[in-house]
């Protein structure tokens, strides 16, 4: 009896094992075009994932941006502003269709904007009173002039969606849009199957079908690239770039990003309220060393807050941020911070120390925090580290308990003009929720400059204002920049046509093709 029982069990197990492996028998086709990216797309919510849908090429707004950040026509082939700057009129191209084949009408565009604007990130900041559809024109009526309107309309959370994309409650259930690739199938959050949109107004994609996979672990992506298991792999960590190149089936393409890694401090705390002390801390940072070790490139050391790729906002003539430990010590001595018996400085009973908060999602952040710990110790500052949830940082900003934080700020890629992030970070009473911006610091001059900038579209007026804003940030150091960032992609040797877009990071999948 026992033998029969055992025999049955063995057979049952073997059968179930075979059964479960059956779905895997379908092998991956060699012709399949595979793209691997880092960000898992959890749902169709435009606010959370809009920027991803745009970079993939599923959604688009009325206008698009070129690689320099200039606004060029999209489905809107031209636009005009009224004399008082309060009305913006966009004329739509003829013959453009949505992914499902229905024509793109002004009515549909108006409906899409109306549904998406209230929950959008940036576009909701524009003072829009109403939207109208008139023939082939869409008109936005503002309550007051808003100079950055063209930039803000690129906000990916207001990518144009066909009416069928929304359900009865106005929630997005489908992404039927106007971009060069449309969704054929999804297995969220891991993969999306894309198919090219023949009715795209611009360059129709040469590759018929693309499989997009999400792999969040950077090392795994590097391994996939090294194994040649994909055609395009995004966001390769700098430390693995050599490995991928050496492996031979894919090569690395790299471009600078408008992103800065910065040390945030609470200027209201006694340790950091003196601007000279902030400069001393800045002088103690070995940016080249951190760049080399954490980012893989010593040249990424930051010399000012806004990265060079943000044209018009970067000023090569600004005195660069330097590394000079002796000078830092002198400044601190003069400011009255005296080293105690354990080497840590003291002044008026306050210890020169602080707790730094940071988060682990980017590998270089904890590494940089550790490096800072050692570098600050040299000038008598006791830095403690806590790696945890990024949301603890804005919480600390809000209740004033934050001492230091290590974070990153990307200047663009939602909208092309850095003014959007600068305003949120430095000119607003509201605490930015993304672990960015100044704490306990206010500059009326900066706020005025930002306001002036927003109320005009005249480039002659705007450029000097840019300089004023950048200069204040450089002199006062409400946050201390450490390094910039670059982005690395791995391209298969059988692919050609890849175009790097550092401003909006659109992958331009429609420009890719296979070499024969």
């Amino acid at each position, binding site marked *: 009896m026992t033998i029969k029982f055992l025999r049955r069990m063995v057979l049952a197990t073997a059968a179930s094992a075979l059964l479960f492996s059956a779905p895997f028998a379908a092998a991956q086709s060699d012709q399949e075009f595979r793209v691997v990216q880092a960000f898992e797309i959890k749902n169709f919510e435009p606010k959370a994932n809009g920027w991803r849908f745009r970079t993939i090429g599923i959604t688009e707004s009325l206008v698009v941006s070129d690689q320099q950040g200039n606004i060029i026509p999209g489905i809107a082939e031209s636009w005009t502003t009224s004399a008082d700057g309060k009305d913006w009129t966009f004329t739509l191209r003829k013959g453009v269709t949505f992914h499902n084949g229905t024509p793109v009408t002004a009515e549909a565009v108006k409906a899409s904007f109306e549904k998406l604007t209230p929950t959008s990130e940036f576009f909701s900041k524009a003072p829009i009173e109403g939207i109208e559809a008139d023939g082939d024109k869409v008109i936005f009526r503002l309550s007051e002039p808003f100079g950055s309107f063209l930039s803000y309309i690129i906000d990916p959370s207001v990518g144009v969606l066909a009416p069928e994309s929304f359900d009865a409650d106005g929630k997005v259930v489908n992404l039927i849009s106007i971009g060069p690739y449309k969704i054929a199938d999804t297995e969220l959050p891991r993969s999306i199957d894309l198919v090219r949109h023949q009715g795209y107004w611009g360059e129709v994609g040469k590759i018929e079908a693309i499989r997009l996979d999400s792999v969040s672990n950077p090392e795994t992506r590097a*391994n*996939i690239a090294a194994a040649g298991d994909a055609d395009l792999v995004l966001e390769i960590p700098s430390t693995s770039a050599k490995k991928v190149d050496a492996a031979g089936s894919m090569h690395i393409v790299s471009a600078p990003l408008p992103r800065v890694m910065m040390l945030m401090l609470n200027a209201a705390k006694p340790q950091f309220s003196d601007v000279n002390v902030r400069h001393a801390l800045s002088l103690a940072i070995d940016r080249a060393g951190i760049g080399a070790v954490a980012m893989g490139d010593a040249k990424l050391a930051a010399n000012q807050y806004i990265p060079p790729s943000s044209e018009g906002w970067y000023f090569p003539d600004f005195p660069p941020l330097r590394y000079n430990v002796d000078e830092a010590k002198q400044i601190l001595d003069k400011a009255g911070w005296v080293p105690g018996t354990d080497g840590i400085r003291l002044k008026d009973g306050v210890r020169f120390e602080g707790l730094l908060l940071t988060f682990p999602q980017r590998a270089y952040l904890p590494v940089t925090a550790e490096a800072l710990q050692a570098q600050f110790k040299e000038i008598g500052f006791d830095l403690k580290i806590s790696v945890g949830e990024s949301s603890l940082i804005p919480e600390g900003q809000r209740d004033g308990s934050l001492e230091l934080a290590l974070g990153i700020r990307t200047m663009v890629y939602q909208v092309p003009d850095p003014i959007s992030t600068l305003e949120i970070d430095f000119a607003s009473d509201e605490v930015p929720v993304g672990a960015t911006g100044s704490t306990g610091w206010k500059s009326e001059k900066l706020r005025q400059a930002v306001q002036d900038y927003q109320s005009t579209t005249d480039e002659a007026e705007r450029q000097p204002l840019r300089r004023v804003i950048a200069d204040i940030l450089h002199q006062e150091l409400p946050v201390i920049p450490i390094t910039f960032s670059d982005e690395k992609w791995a391209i298969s040797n059988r692919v050609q046509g890849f175009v790097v877009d550092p401003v909006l990071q659109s992958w331009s999948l429609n420009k890719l093709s296979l070499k024969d």
Partner: protein
Amino acid sequence: MAVFYLIFQRLGQAALVAFVLATLSFVFIQILPGDIALRITVARVGIDQASALEVERIREQASLSRPMLLQYADWMRSVATGNLGRSFVSDRPVSEELVTAAGYTFRLAIIAWVLSYLIALPIGIYAGLRPNGFLDRMTAVLGATLASLPSFLVGIGLISVFVLMLRWFPPAGYRTSAHLVLPAVTLALSLLPASVRIIRNAVSEVRASFYMTFARFKGLTRFRAFRDHGVRNAAIPVVTFAALQLAFLMDGFVVVETLFNYPGLGEALVKALLARDIPVIMGCSLVIGTLYAIVNLAADLVVVKLDPRRMESAVL
């Protein structure tokens, strides 16, 4: 009947485990420092995208401002009806996400388990039939070595050799059977040392035992003696242990799934822990804990079926 009592007791245990896990998760979330709503917002819309308005919206939506006892009652009630809430990160129903993940984990677990026994049985039986022989001693050494290697080290080693050097297998994914091989092998290797030892001990005991000698007296060949009389008795400890090993796999698959980017329950749990996605954390713990208890129940039932003498100790 005693069997029913056993089933009842074990199911009760499983339910109790689920209850305790659910309560524990709830308690821990409440004592976390910081603002949950803020954390959820950042997890859901990303660092660059969150805003204060969004935070308030999510706070309302997740009813995070109601008194704790009511939240607890709400939670327990929804769990009992199988509704594990919606993920804070993806906004999809937790049960939906976990069912897919559980399917993948189950597949991997069965394949790893079968694989480990395909390897362990021949080695163990042979070593048991020739105890203290060369193979026996070698497997003992190898077994101790393998048992001292954490599964992530084994996995890393396999990736370095088979993926990066030899290019035989892809590094991550779940689509083709090729993707399953390395994770299954890693898990199987983690089970091997113990099962080989158990099989070997069981076989060597049986080999020297009374009833085997008796069978030989009857004139049966060594092989037939073993097949007809030995296997049954050797099988009991082996099968008992085999059933338990499915449960041991739980420890291993968290690390292995994360390492190979395999979309099972283990990976889902680790991701949820790092993102503080509370509903998914609670859901995963519940599913894993309950499954573990059920597998233990199945193991006990198998033991009792094979050797009714064991009933007493199992029930107590």
